[in-house]
C-alpha cells in the first residue's frame, strides 16, 4: 500500500502549512498580540486597557470582538478610487505578507518539505514585496493623505532595504549557508546564538524590523496627527481589518526570522530530533516562544516613543543604519576568517 504514506504525508504537510506554524497559529498570535500590545500600553499608561469585553478574563476577547466588528461593517468604495486596485491591494498585501512563512522552518522536520537550500534568500525576497502593495493601496485611494502615506512608505522602503539585506548577508557569511536549517545547526554546534556572534547585525535587523512593520518610533506612514490613517484612510470594514493585521503578520515573520538567525532557532531542542512531535511541534513551540518575546518587546516600544519624522528616518537609514550594516558585514568577514 503506497497510498497510506502519501496520505499521511499530505495530512502532515497540510497541517504544517495551514495549522502550525501556518494560518491558524498566525491568526491566534496576531489576535493575542494586538491584545497584548494594548494591555502593555495600558499598563505603562496607568490604566486598564481593553476590559469590558469579557471582563472576567481581563478583556482578552476584545480583539476577536474587533475582528467581528470589522467583518460585519459596511464597506465603502470611494467614488474617485481606482476600484480594482483599491479592492485587490489589501488582499494581495495580506497574502504576500503571509508567503514568506512557507520558507521559514520551525523545526528540523521541515527538511522533508522544501529541501531547497535557499530558504533565507526566498523569505527575505518575499518580505520586500509587501510594501509595494502598500504603495498601491495608498495610490488607488484617491486621497491626498493616503497618497502622502504611500510616498512615505516608498521612501522608507528604499532606505531600509539594503540594511536588511546586509544584516542577513552578515549572518550568511558566518553560517556559510542560504538555508535556515544549517544556520540553526551552526548555532547549536557552536552553542552560540547569532546575537552574540554578531550583535551589530542583530541590532540592524531589529531596527529594520521595527521600521518595516511600522512600529513606533517609525510609525511614519500612519502618523495619525498628520495623515489621519495614512494608507488606510479610505478603507473600512474587513479591508481595513486586513490592512491593520498585515503589519502584525510582518512583525511575526520578522520575529521568526530573527529568532532563527539570531536567537538559536529551536535551541535547546536538538536538530536531530525527528517525528511530528519531536521534529516539528516542540521546536516550533520554542521558535514561536522566542518570536513572541521579540514581538512583545517591539510592541512595548509604542508606550515609550513618539514617532520620528520622515526625513529623519530616511536620513538615519542612509546615514547610520547602512554604515552599521556594512560594519556588521565586515565583522562577519573578520570572524569568518578568524574562526
Amino acid at each position, binding site marked *: 500500500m503506497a497510498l497510506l504514506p502519501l496520505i499521511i504525508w499530505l495530512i502532515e504537510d497540510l497541517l504544517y502549512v495551514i495549522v502550525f506554524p501556518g494560518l491558524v497559529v498566525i491568526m491566534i498570535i496576531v489576535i493575542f498580540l494586538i491584545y497584548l500590545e494594548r494591555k502593555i500600553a495600558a*499598563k*505603562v499608561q496607568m490604566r486598564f486597557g481593553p*476590559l469590558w469585553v469579557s471582563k472576567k478574563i481581563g478583556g482578552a476577547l476584545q480583539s476577536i470582538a474587533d475582528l467581528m466588528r470589522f467583518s460585519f461593517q459596511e464597506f465603502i468604495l470611494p467614488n474617485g478610487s481606482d476600484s480594482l486596485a483599491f479592492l485587490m491591494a489589501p488582499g494581495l498585501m495580506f497574502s504576500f505578507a503571509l508567503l514568506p512563512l512557507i520558507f521559514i522552518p520551525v523545526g528540523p522536520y521541515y527538511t522533508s518539505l522544501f529541501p531547497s537550500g535557499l530558504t533565507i534568500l526566498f523569505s527575505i525576497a518575499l518580505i520586500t514585496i509587501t510594501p509595494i502593495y502598500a504603495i498601491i493601496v495608498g495610490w488607488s485611494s484617491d486621497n491626498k493623505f493616503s497618497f502622502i502615506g504611500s510616498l512615505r512608505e516608498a521612501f522608507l522602503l528604499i532606505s531600509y532595504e539594503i540594511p536588511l539585506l546586509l544584516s542577513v548577508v552578515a549572518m550568511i557569511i558566518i553560517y556559510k549557508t542560504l538555508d535556515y536549517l544549517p544556520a540553526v545547526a551552526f548555532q547549536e554546534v557552536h552553542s552560540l546564538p547569532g546575537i552574540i556572534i554578531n550583535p551589530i547585525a542583530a541590532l540592524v535587523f531589529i531596527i529594520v524590523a521595527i521600521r518595516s512593520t511600522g512600529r513606533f518610533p517609525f510609525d511614519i506612514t500612519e502618523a495619525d496627527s498628520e495623515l489621519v490613517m495614512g494608507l488606510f484612510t479610505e478603507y473600512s470594514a474587513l479591508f481595513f481589518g486586513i490592512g491593520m493585521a498585515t503589519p502584525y503578520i510582518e512583525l511575526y515573520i520578522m520575529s521568526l526570522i530573527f529568532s532563527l538567525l539570531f536567537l538559536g532557532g529551536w535551541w535547546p531542542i536538538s536538530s536531530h530530533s525527528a517525528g511530528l512531535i519531536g521534529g516539528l511541534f516542540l521546536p516550533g513551540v520554542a521558535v514561536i516562544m522566542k518570536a513572541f518575546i521579540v514581538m512583545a518587546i517591539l510592541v512595548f516600544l509604542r508606550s*515609550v516613543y513618539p514617532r520620528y519624522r520622515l526625513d529623519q528616518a530616511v536620513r538615519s537609514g542612509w546615514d547610520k543604519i547602512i554604515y552599521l550594516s556594512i560594519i556588521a558585514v565586515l565583522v562577519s568577514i573578520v570572524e569568518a576568517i578568524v574562526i
Partner: protein
Amino acid sequence: MSNKKRKTRGVIEGHTKALATGFRYLVEPNRMTLDYPAETIKLPSNYRGFFTVDDKKCIGCSMCEMVCPPEAITMVPRVVSSGGNTVPADQETSTGAKPAKKTKRPVVNWGRCIFCYFCFDICPVDAFISSPVHDLSFYDDADYRPTYEKYLKLPEEPYKDSKKVTSKPDLKRGIKYEPAP
C-alpha cells in the same frame, strides 16, 4: 535662527532611561483608573450635583429664575399634595388643603442646567438642597423638564450596587481609591 548648544542627554543614555522608565511602569502596580461604574466615588459634600428645593423654606421670590444664566429655572404654580391627591395651588382651598402664602416654585430644566449653583447663592432663604448625584441621564426629552412634584424628590443615585470608594491623593499613583467608610 538660533543654534545655541544646549545640554541634551546622549543618545544611549536617553534611550536607556526612556526604556527603563517605561519598563518600570510596566512592572509596577500603578493604575489610577476608577473602574466606573463597578466602582463609584463618594463625592465631597460640597459637590455640585442635582439639586432640589425645600418646599417649606422657599418663598417663591423668583430670584433664582432671574439669576439663572442658562435660563433653566422656571417658576411654576405650586402644587401640593393633600389627602393623597395632587392639586394645583389655586385649587387648594376648595379641596380643603391649607393655602400656601406664595404660590410659585422653581423647577429646573435639567437639559439646560449648567450646575453653576448661582440659584443657591442668590436665594435669600437658602432654600435649595444639594446632592452629589451627577451621573444621570434621562430616558426621553420630557424627563429633562420635571414637574414640580417630581422635582421635589432628589433623583436617585444610579449604580446603587456599585462599590463606593473615596479618592485619596497617593504618592505612587496620584489618586488611590479606597473603600468608603
